[in-house]
């Protein structure tokens, strides 16, 4: 093997099956970082792990993880082969807005999967990183959290909570060596959006997310929109006066 690699810290992907999470894994593995993929039914992720190892000649491990099992979080972290220096949480669940309106159990599932449980695991990781004085946490939130809209406010409100949590965590840890990155994708062509008719110019490919997250981590960015045009789109949407906004179909 002629590949020379510095001693780079492992990157842990929570939601290792997610298209965005995997794209991040590729981006970091290409730089030489060992990869830890955590997901539900992780056995079926073996081909992804093999693929990453073959392409980038880095160690790749897989770990069973259900974010909703908050009682298991500490044990899960203890079981990792090495403490990750970078953690990327790509877990999320879109759900059906209408189901959430009719049935609070369905809404709660979306809220817990996008906010409560990811916040729990990232909070735990933050404490551990704070103790060592180093590390980076990346949360994949969403532009949907920037303003609640009739068509997906259950999901959006959970993402809003997650965004605020990440912001607070960043603020709390700013004086330590731990950095927190908030990623707000607009549309991304993934399994989550399969079959939707998305506008091409506003829709990122998962690889763009991988590259953007890598860059944001390297440059210690705080909040990024992907594609960047979404920062503008959301600035406009946030600034529409409520009396007007409430009558819009968005």
């Amino acid at each position, binding site marked *: 093997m002629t590949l020379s690699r510095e001693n780079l810290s492992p990157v842990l992907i929570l939601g290792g099956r997610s298209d965005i999470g995997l794209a991040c894994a590729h981006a970091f593995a290409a730089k030489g970082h060992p990869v830890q993929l955590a997901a539900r039914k992780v056995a079926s992720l073996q081909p992804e792990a*093999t*693929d990453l190892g073959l392409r980038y000649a880095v160690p790749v491990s897989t770990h069973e993880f259900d974010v909703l099992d908050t009682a298991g979080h500490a044990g899960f972290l203890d079981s990792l082969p090495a403490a990750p220096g970078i953690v990327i949480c790509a877990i999320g669940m879109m759900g059906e807005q209408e189901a959430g309106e009719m049935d609070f159990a369905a809404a709660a599932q979306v809220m817990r999967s996008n906010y409560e449980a990811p916040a729990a695991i990232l909070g735990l990781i933050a404490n551990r990183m704070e103790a060592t004085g180093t590390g980076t946490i990346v949360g994949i939130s969403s532009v949907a959290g920037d303003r609640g809209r009739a068509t997906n406010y259950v999901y959006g409100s959970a993402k809003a909570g997650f965004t605020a949590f990440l912001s607070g965590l960043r603020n709390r840890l700013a004086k330590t060596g731990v950095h927190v990155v908030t990623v707000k994708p607009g549309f991304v062509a993934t399994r989550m959006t399969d079959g939707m008719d998305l506008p091409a110019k506003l829709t990122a490919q998962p690889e763009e997310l991988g590259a953007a997250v890598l860059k944001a981590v390297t440059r210690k960015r705080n909040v990024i929109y992907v594609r960047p045009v979404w920062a503008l789109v959301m600035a406009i949407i946030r600034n529409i006066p409520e009396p007007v906004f409430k009558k819009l179909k968005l």
Partner: protein
Amino acid sequence: MILSGWGRFPKLECRVTRPRSDAEVRALVAEGALIARGNGRSYGDAALSARGTVDMRGFSRMLSFDAETGLLVAEAGVLLADIIAAFLPRGWFPLVTPGTKFVTLGGMIAADVHGKNHHKDGSMAASVEWVEVMDGDGMVHRASRAENPDLFGFTLGGMGLTGIILRAAIRLRPVQSAWILQETVPAPDLAAAMALFEASAEATYSVAWIDCLASGANLGRSLVMLGEHAAPSDLDNRRRARPLVAPAKRLLTVPFDAPGFALNRYSVGAFNALYWRKGRRSAGRALVDWDSYFYPLDGILHWNRIYGRKGFAQFQCVLPLAASEPGLRALLGEIAASGQGSFLAVLKRFGAQDSRFSFPMEGYTLALDFPVNPVTLALLDRLDAITLDHGGRFYLAKDARMSAATLRRADPRLPAFLAMRAAEGRARSFASALSERLDL
């Protein structure tokens, strides 16, 4: 979704799906009349189907690699660029590569692509150990020279019409460096160019850029480019320290469609004359990185836009050896007389190949592209006729406009291919705009 091939002609509204597992492909196959699509680098309508275009880029995992033998097993949607990125640093390079690295493994197999080393190493088929193909009933068959040899033979070069290629095993070649020793030799006319090819049978790589607007005594003037994988001893000290690493290239991009008038006989003629003069002056030996050598056009993203909104059509034929010289003379004469120039005219000597439906055969292949308009379409029909008169045939991965009758006259292997299509209901399960146009 409106799709086209790389030539952006024709364009077709297609229903597109992107499966990620055998089970998802199986569910699609049950609905019938599909065509697999790789990275859309074929020029015409081979990877288009209005009813069901199956985007195979969801099958993008590498599955295993044997560092002893260089055998790579991968899913069909893996890009050649990714294969090179992963394995060149470890001393392996594809045995056969087309002129762009933005193709998928499945697309290379289905078109049985050729590279600059066809005369020596053969087509893609030479590197393929086995393929796994899903048929119209959702059954997966492994096919190799020993197992299901008919399916193997027809799938290599079968343009996706035998089923969906899911996975394949290919052999890579060991290389000692990421560099190519290139030798450029100017040839003042066609006879000289062909003589150079014949004298260079031992060169690993050979190809010629041909000035298709030169006429009269200059007809067929070319820059013949030969290449060898460089050994570490060919490199200077700095490069020898990391022989398998070449600098990353900066990407340029063509951001929008050029207006239709940007390309005309004067601009193309001027470009070609300039390229010839520059090439002749800089002839000789040079050390070139793998990317610039094999994929010069990949450095310019979306270069297909320079032909404008209406798109362009490629013409690529191969002429049997004995008829090559008169045939090429007739083709080049017709093109020069029409004044419809092509920037990218490429001439190459093929070695012998015996295959069920692949394009290459022993002889000379000529590839050119033209902006699509009534004048060039008429010219292309005349080029078809000249090719037929000389016993040649056409590359379906490039074609967008040939007639079913022309194909029937060009290829005596057609009845066997059609029989394969008829058997087991393949024609019902797998169809593309190309197969409909050519009545396959």
